[in-house]
């Protein structure tokens, strides 16, 4: 198995693989710090407290997570054809890419966790801002952030790879099917929330089911994404 070659394929351009996501993250953090400084300077303690509460849902961390979501798509869309072109087998590509997914998820989960620990220890970098300690990466203990961020990144990369592989296999018709199916699900949930008291109560129960069950849901999506991706990649052909 030439897994090393596949890993090299994904990481040969270090600046693209690791440099830019971290640079973009630092730029996003800088903007958050500037906002924090402005709010604290102008609004005082009350504004600081409100900002700290509101920033639990601050999506600035997606400056880092966003490119990683895209990585799952490009792995199949751009790297797979080159891997086949270089004589690597589908099995080798899948094994090496899965390893890179896991490695990426672990690397950036550690980065986010370290950032969160520093952020919490310094009172939001002295400005009460939240960048790492947010809803999407976990507002609980540091180990929860580590696990949650790891699972989240791994899940989006695997699901992204599965979607791209399905597109590779069935073309535009798959995308039509996917988006229509997604729209129907969203519409059904929205209608349920608006029209059914029982469904609303059930949804609230689901939303409040706690951190561990939610991590189970994220892990389940990751497993389904991985299963679909691995099943399809074995029969994927060059286009």
């Amino acid at each position: 198995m030439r897994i090393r070659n596949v890993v090299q394929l994904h990481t040969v351009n270090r600046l693209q693989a690791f440099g830019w996501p971290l640079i973009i993250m630092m730029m996003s953090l800088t903007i958050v710090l500037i906002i924090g400084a402005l709010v604290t300077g102008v609004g005082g303690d009350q504004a600081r407290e409100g900002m700290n509460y509101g920033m639990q849902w601050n999506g600035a961390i997606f400056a880092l997570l966003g490119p990683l979501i895209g990585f799952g798509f490009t792995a199949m869309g751009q790297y797979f054809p080159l891997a086949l072109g270089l004589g690597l087998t589908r099995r080798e590509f899948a094994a090496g890419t899965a390893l890179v997914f896991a490695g990426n998820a672990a690397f950036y989960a550690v980065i986010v966790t370290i950032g969160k620990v520093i952020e919490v220890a310094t009172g939001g970098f002295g400005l009460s801002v939240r960048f790492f300690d947010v809803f999407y990466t976990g507002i609980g203990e540091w180990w929860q952030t580590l696990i949650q961020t790891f699972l989240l990144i791994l899940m989006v990369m695997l699901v992204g790879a599965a979607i791209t592989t399905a597109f590779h296999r069935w073309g535009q018709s798959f995308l039509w099917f996917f988006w229509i199916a997604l729209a129907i699900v969203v519409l059904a949930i929205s209608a349920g929330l608006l029209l059914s008291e029982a469904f609303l109560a059930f949804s609230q129960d689901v939303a409040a089911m706690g951190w561990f069950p939610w991590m189970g849901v994220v892990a389940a999506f990751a497993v389904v994404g991985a299963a679909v991706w691995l099943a399809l990649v074995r029969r994927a052909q060059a286009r």
Partner: protein
Amino acid sequence: MTAIVTTALSKRYPEVHALDGVSIRLEENRIHGLLGRNGAGKTTLMQLLTGQVFATSGEMQVLGGSPVENVDVLSQTVFIQESQKYPDTFRAVDVLRIAAGAYPHWDQAYADRLVAQYRLPVKRLVKKLSRGQLSAIGIVIGLAARAPLTFFDEPYLGLDAVARQMFFDDLLADYTEHPRTIVLSTHHIDEVANLLEHVVILDQGKVLLEADTDDLHDAAMSVSGRAQAVDAFLAGREVLERKALGTLATATFTPRDGDELAAREAGLELAPVSLQALFVHLTTANAASAAAADPDRAHDRAIV
């Protein structure tokens, strides 16, 4: 030893029968030409032989085994295709680094020499390279990989005449020093005619001709002179092509013993036919016979 054997190999896509019952045998350590018009099935055949796509039916043996998901076969195979896609963020140097790790016989010093020779800007993003520079990446990989089985699919698109000649010279020089099996798909038939030892001509997904180039020298001749004399000379024989201009005519035909003497006595001139001319004659004649056999299909093609 035989490098490649295919038996009744077919590949069907929803809208097209790309390959239809292809049976060929390519001996190892030779340069094989894979010739055919656009859409003849050349790239599909090479994609099948490198495990990039799956056959609909038929069998194939590459270096003694099936190429599909076969590490032993694929690690000894390099396939340079003109339509190769590269990740948007890649520079030429990234592609070459990966290739260096992927091919066990990779010669880095030779690769560096080729990069300089083809003036390849290795630090530039691949998506910003010209068509010719993209071809140069493929040429560097294809040659420096020194893979026992090397496929080149139109490797010089966009290259100027000087660079093309450079590629042919490099290919021949390196092949002489490091013999290996090379399959070269090309439209520039006359430019590579002297390199090829064996050719396979594909047309509409089928093998039109498979032969050693030495044998092809005698496969067709052209005769020219007065039209009446030419027609008399060719009476009752298979004529691949005939052109007339006033009272003069030129025709391409399949020769047989004694033609030289008969032509001289009739005051006609005989000349060998180039590989490219033979290719044109064969594919044109095949298209004509296909049209005659299936007028509806020919009509459809004409409309397209």
